[in-house]
C-alpha cells in the first residue's frame, strides 16, 4: 500500500534527460507547468502529450511507472470530472437524466481537464524520476541564490529540503515496519468505525514520531561531528556546469513550448 507512493522516487540512468543540468531541468519543468495551464485546446494538449511521451522514451523510464504515479490521484481526477460534468452549462443539453443535464461544453471541458491533470502529473514526476535529490536541491539552491541578497537563508532551506526528501523513503519503510509489528499483535487498521480507525493510528504514530525524533537527533550529531556550520564558505563536490548539450536540449524544449502556445493563436476556439 505505502510502497505505491512513487512521488520523489529516483531512477538512476544515463540519458539526455538524466544528464541535463538540474537548474535547467527545474526551469523547463516550471515552464511546462505554465504552458499546461495556458494551453486549452486539443492540438496544444496533443502536442504536450507528444512532448511528455518523447521525454519518457528518451529517459528510459518504464511507462509502467506512469500508471503507478497516476493511480493514487485517480479519486481526485474522478471527483473533478463528476463535479464539472454536471455544473458546467452550455446552450444545448446533450443528455438529460432527470433534473441533471449534461452539456457538450461540459464534456469537452472534462476531457481537457483530465488530460491536463494527467500531463501535469507525468511531466512533473519525470523531474524527480530522473534527478537525484542532491542534484535537485543543488539546482534549487543555485536558482534561489539571488534571494540571499534579501537575507533569505537559501542554503539552509536547500539543506532542509535535502534532508526531508532523503527521509521520505526511510520513514515510509519505518511506518511499514511498525504497522506490521502492531498487526502482529492483532491491531486492526482497516476496519471499524471512524473513531476506531483514528484510535488505531495511535500505536503507529507514537513509535513513528519517537523514531523520527531519534533519527533527527542522530543526524544532527553526525553533522556536527563533521563540522557542518551552514552555507557560508562551503564548497561543493559537484559543480554545476552548463554544457553545450544542455543549451541545445533547452532550446529544443523552448521551441516546443512555443509551438504548443502558438496553437492558441491558430485554433482560437476550445476545440
Amino acid at each position, binding site marked *: 500500500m505505502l510502497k505505491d507512493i512513487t512521488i520523489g522516487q529516483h*531512477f538512476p540512468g544515463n540519458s539526455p534527460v538524466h544528464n541535463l543540468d538540474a537548474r535547467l531541468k527545474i526551469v523547463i519543468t516550471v515552464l511546462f507547468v505554465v504552458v499546461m495551464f495556458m494551453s486549452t485546446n486539443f492540438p496544444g494538449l496533443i502536442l504536450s502529450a507528444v512532448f511528455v511521451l518523447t521525454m519518457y522514451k528518451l529517459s528510459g523510464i*518504464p511507462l*509502467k511507472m506512469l500508471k503507478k504515479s497516476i493511480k493514487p490521484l485517480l479519486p481526485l481526477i474522478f471527483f473533478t470530472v463528476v463535479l464539472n460534468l454536471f455544473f458546467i452549462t452550455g446552450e444545448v443539453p446533450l443528455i438529460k437524466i432527470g433534473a441533471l443535464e449534461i452539456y457538450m461544453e461540459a464534456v469537452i471541458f472534462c476531457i481537457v481537464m483530465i488530460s491536463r491533470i494527467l500531463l501535469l502529473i507525468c511531466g512533473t514526476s519525470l523531474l524527480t524520476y530522473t534527478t537525484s535529490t542532491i542534484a535537485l536541491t543543488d539546482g534549487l539552491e543555485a536558482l534561489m541564490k539571488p534571494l540571499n541578497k534579501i537575507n533569505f537563508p537559501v542554503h539552509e532551506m536547500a539543506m532542509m529540503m535535502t534532508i526531508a526528501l532523503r527521509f521520505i523513503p526511510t520513514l515510509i519503510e*519505518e511506518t511499514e*515496519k*511498525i504497522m*506490521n*509489528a*502492531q*498487526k*502482529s*499483535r*492483532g*491491531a*486492526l487498521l482497516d476496519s471499524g468505525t471512524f473513531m476506531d480507525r483514528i484510535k488505531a493510528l*495511535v*500505536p*503507529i504514530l*507514537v*513509535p513513528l514520531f*519517537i*523514531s523520527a525524533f531519534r533519527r533527527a537527533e542522530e543526524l544532527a550529531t553526525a553533522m556536527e561531528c563533521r563540522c557542518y556550520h551552514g552555507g557560508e564558505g562551503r564548497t561543493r563536490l559537484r559543480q554545476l556546469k552548463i554544457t553545450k548539450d544542455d543549451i541545445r536540449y533547452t532550446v529544443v524544449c523552448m521551441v516546443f513550448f512555443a509551438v504548443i502556445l502558438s496553437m492558441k493563436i491558430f485554433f482560437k476556439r476550445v476545440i
Partner: protein
Amino acid sequence: MSILKIENLSYTYNEGMPGATKALDDINLEIEEGTFVGVIGHTGCGKSTLISHFNGLTKPQAGRILLEGKDIWKDYEDIRQVRFSVGLVFQYPEYQLFEETCYKDIAFGPKNMGLDEEEIDRRVKMAAQFCGVTDEMLAGSPFDLSGGQKRRVAIAGIIAMMPKMLVLDEPCAGLDPEGRELILSQVKNYQLTTGSTVILVSHSMEDIANYADKVLVMENGHIYNYDTTEKVFRDAENLSRMGLGIPDITKVFLKLKEMGVDIGTDVYTIPYAVKSLLKYKEAKRRGTDA
C-alpha cells in the same frame, strides 16, 4: 505432528519491475510442534521474508502455508486469529512500544484478542515474569527503560498472547552478552514450560548451537538444509563457504583433529566440549595404563 507446513512457497519483490528480486523460491518445509528451530543464512537470503509469511503479514505469491493443517489464507477473516497463534517478534521490537506504561503495552495484544480484564491481567503478569520484567518496570513508562529492558517488554507483549508458535527475528541484535543470554534463556524457558514451538533467526552460531534442536539453513531463497543441530554443524565446510561459519568451539575441535588428536568434531556447545575432552583424557589414560 507438524504445527506449520509450507508448500511450494515463492515470493518475488517488485515483481515485473526493473530490479525484481526473488526472495523465496519454491520453499517446502515442515516444522514439528514443540521444537526449537534456529534459522541461519546470509543477509538477504530470505529469512525475514519467510518468517513474515508465517503469521500472514505477507501473502504468498505462490504456494500454501498450513497452520495445524489449515491453510491460513483460506479465510481472510481468520488471518487475525493466525496472528494470535503465531507470535512474531520483529528485529528491534523496542521501536513498537507506544503506551504510557509497560503494563498497558504488554496488554495491547491480549486486549486485541478480546479477553476479559482478569485474563489480561493474568497474562500480562505471566509474560512479565517470563521476560524478567519487574513490577516496578510494569508501572513505569517504557521510554524510561534501557534498550535491553525495552526489548524484553516488547517480547513480553508477544508472549502475553500465548502463541502456539513464537517467531523471533534476531532478538539479540545489539545487546551485550548478558542481555542476549537473559533473553534467550527466557525464550527457552517459555518453550519448555508451555510446550510451544520457537523459531529463532540469528547470526550468532553460538546462540543457535546453545538453544536450537533443529537448524534451518537458507541460501539465496532456497532451503539449503534442515536438520538436527549436530548434523547441520557437521557440514562446516559448506557453512563457511556460505559465509556463515560454525560455533567457535567446533572450530577448536576441528583444529585439534587436524593436529592429529583422535577426537570427534560434532561438538558445538561448551558443556559437551568439556564432556568429550574428559572422555578423551580418560580414554588416553586408560590407553597408557594398558
